[in-house]
């Protein structure tokens, strides 16, 4: 992979830093990567080689590039960190990939730090709100560890060149929530637009291997403004597993210019919700929902798995009735029975099981029982997905010995569209 032509273009309204990324050993098209922000924050954004290295390294590793050559100097601490990350992935996922050689054309040179200034990645969700809440409650505003800026990276979650209506709506709601949270906490909210996801479109790969490297890339693009950038952990001790954001990986994305901190990864979500449940800004502007487009100007749909789980936490904390960020203030057994277990069904039992005892404790045994049924449903689906149940055995037999005849017959019988033989 070659990263070249690092440049900064400042216009009257927008400022953009970019680099051309060309594949060497993989037949993939070149991509002009960019980060962009409004002219008010033009000084925050610079064409840092460390940032583009971070954007490219794990896609290069995945697609078997032998080296990553980048124009400019790279911090040796970051190089050692990235070499560590690749070795960790090999240790976690087994052999089959080889570490990419990092070749900075300007050599290895320790980055210099700007004057100490801390920021955070803010999404408006429980994790980032808890990180902000803790910081505001423990650091005086003039302490260098007190957050001054909130970074929002538009485009890091969605790889499409032209975002879908749903994704546009999620972004709009997030920006709206962040503006209110920033105003309420004295944070400067800086939005970066980026297309770094164009290097690797596979959402599963990004979620499972690369997510925090992309966040680190954005943090390093702001290295002349921020020396420390934090983000709230999405997983906790019970759910920790080899994943695209993990405390063991994330500490390797630091350079001498920028420290990256994954915060609160030992705390479970319910603990975080209980802590921020007394904070009016959080109750009013919390934005956890990725469904959409939504109507009536609400932040959250109130019916998806993540919304209901968060609302359940607020119910346990005794604050759901004050949570203006959600369109409804009650949870029924029926809404739980209708609930789709969501994207990562394997995580669902870990997320929901800690809610059962607290629900019993507040006298909602009906909801506790419904949660148990939801977990059982998710586990059934997981067994189905992993083909561990009897249906799975039939499917495996069908694929291995019958060429998928049973699958095609079943789909025809259910009126579903036929699928290609090889799929």
């Amino acid at each position, binding site marked *: 992979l070659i990263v070249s032509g690092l440049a900064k273009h400042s216009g009257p309204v927008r400022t953009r830093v970019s680099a051309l990324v060309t594949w060497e050993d993989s037949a993939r098209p070149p991509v002009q990567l960019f980060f962009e922000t409004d002219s008010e924050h033009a000084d925050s954004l610079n064409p840092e080689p460390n940032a583009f290295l971070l954007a490219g390294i794990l896609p290069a590793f995945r697609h078997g590039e032998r080296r990553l050559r980048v124009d400019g100097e790279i911090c040796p601490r970051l190089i050692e960190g990235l070499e560590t990350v690749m070795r960790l992935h090999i240790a976690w996922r087994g052999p089959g990939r080889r570490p990419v050689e990092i070749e900075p054309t300007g050599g290895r040179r320790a980055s210099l730090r700007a004057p100490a200034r801390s920021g955070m990645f803010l999404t408006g969700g429980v994790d980032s709100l808890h990180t902000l809440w803790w910081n505001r409650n423990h650091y005086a505003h003039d*302490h260098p*560890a007190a957050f001054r800026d909130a970074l929002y990276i538009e485009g890091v979650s969605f790889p499409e060149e032209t975002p879908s209506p749903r994704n546009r709506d999620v972004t709009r709601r997030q920006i709206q929530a962040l503006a209110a949270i920033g105003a309420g906490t004295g944070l400067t909210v800086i939005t970066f637009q980026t297309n770094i996801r164009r290097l690797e479109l596979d959402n599963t790969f990004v979620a499972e291997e690369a997510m925090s490297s992309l966040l680190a890339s954005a943090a390093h693009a702001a290295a002349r403004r921020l020396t420390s950038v934090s983000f709230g952990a999405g997983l906790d001790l019970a759910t920790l597993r080899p994943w695209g954001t993990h405390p063991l990986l994330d500490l390797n994305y630091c350079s001498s210019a920028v420290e990256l901190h994954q915060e609160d990864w030992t705390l479970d979500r319910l603990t975080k919700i209980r802590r921020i449940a007394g904070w009016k800004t959080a109750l009013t502007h919390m934005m956890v929902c990725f469904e959409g487009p939504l109507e009536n100007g609400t932040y959250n749909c109130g019916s998806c798995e993540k919304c209901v789980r968060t609302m359940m936490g607020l119910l346990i904390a005794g604050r759901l009735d004050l949570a203006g960020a959600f369109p409804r203030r009650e949870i029924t057994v029926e809404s739980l029975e209708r609930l789709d277990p969501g994207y990562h069904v394997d995580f669902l039992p870990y997320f929901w099981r800690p809610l059962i005892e607290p629900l019993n404790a507040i006298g909602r045994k009906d909801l506790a029982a419904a949660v148990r049924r939801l977990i059982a449903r998710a586990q059934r689906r997981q067994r189905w997905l992993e083909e561990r149940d009897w249906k799975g055995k039939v499917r495996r037999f069908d694929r291995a010995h019958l060429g998928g005849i049973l699958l095609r017959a079943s789909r025809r019988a259910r009126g579903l569209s036929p699928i290609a033989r090889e799929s």
Partner: protein
Amino acid sequence: MKISNLRLERKGSIARVLARVTWEDNPRPGLDLFFETDSRFAEDLPAGGESFLTACALPAMYQGERRISLEGEVCPRLAAGVTAAADLLRAWYGPPRGRIAVEAARLRTLPPLKPERTAVFLTAGIDSLHLIQTNRKQYFPGHPDRFADGVAVFGHLSSSDTSAEDWNNRLQPVLREVSSEAQLEVVPIRTNVWEIEPDTRFIADESLSSALVSAAHALGRRWTNVSIASGRDAARLELRGTHPILDPLLSSSGLEVRHVGIRFQRFERLDTLASWPKAIEHLVVCLDFPPPPFLNCGACEKCVRTMTSLLALGRLSETRHFPFTEVVPEMIRPLFIGPLVEDYWRDLLPLLAREGRRDLVKAIEEGIVEGRRAQRWLQDAGWKGWLRRADRRLFRGQIRKIRSQWASPRSVDPDRLDSLMRARV
């Protein structure tokens, strides 16, 4: 557990901070926990309770104390961090480790130190010296991440009895000589933190970094970050008392703790270190505190492995603190080559074979097989394990006792080793 009566004392050329540690839920005697250093660093000794909290939190958790009550102020980041560290260890090792609450008289953040100053925990071992060597290559003089000080802690791995103290006194000039070449200032810190929980297994598996870092917090006004050299690598990470995700949890708002070096395998580190003659000359890896004249015993697993590695690199004869300049199979045979170190030994096989040392290759291969067998024995695996469990349950271990009277223990031929050591002296 209560931590009270925090105070600073000066006695001649020594300055120390100390506090009274009292157990609340355990019938254990209290102790005066101290950290002491040369009086020239006295102004860096802080008034806060960070060092005591860091030293006590994990032992308190391990012994089932419900809280740590600290008379004095402490950093909220560290208070949250030690709780998180206890949660992590509970997740790794399970009960009876419980939740521990930190109750301090006051939470307050530490003011930022300017200019930044970076330190490394200094030993004369491979990991620490390799980290210093790498740091010197990566950072130019004046860079805030270039190590300025080497923190030499004593008292976290053993009691300060006469033999250990004597060994530590003999080690100091070695540390100074290596550090002088690396342009590091040595900051010695002596403590009795080991006495809080002297369980060797607990120290190795859970509290090693907290004991070390407590000493760094004791001079918390001197540094902005401190690095611990990793003993493991990315491919062979184990749950240990110093670990890349455990150690940073012991950071405060004033002192960042880093666990550095899992990028490199142990032999890779030694291979790189071989280009630093002073480091090879003064290598000290032994934790058995051997009597004079040598600082390495030359007989423990770590010593023999390091000597064998140096032999494979053709550098053993350049060392000064090992009693031998040669390795023979008899040194390897009595060692327990368990799962934690098997890979380290395996890395040496091709090099030794290339050097024509088939005798050592054979001894290592036999040691690995024996180590696996012993591991199965320790885990009571297989049908023999079933028999041992039955023996313990039904006959209170009598069959094992009878059998052990027949078996002859494996040992080193003392005459052979004595002659090798005499040659060195």
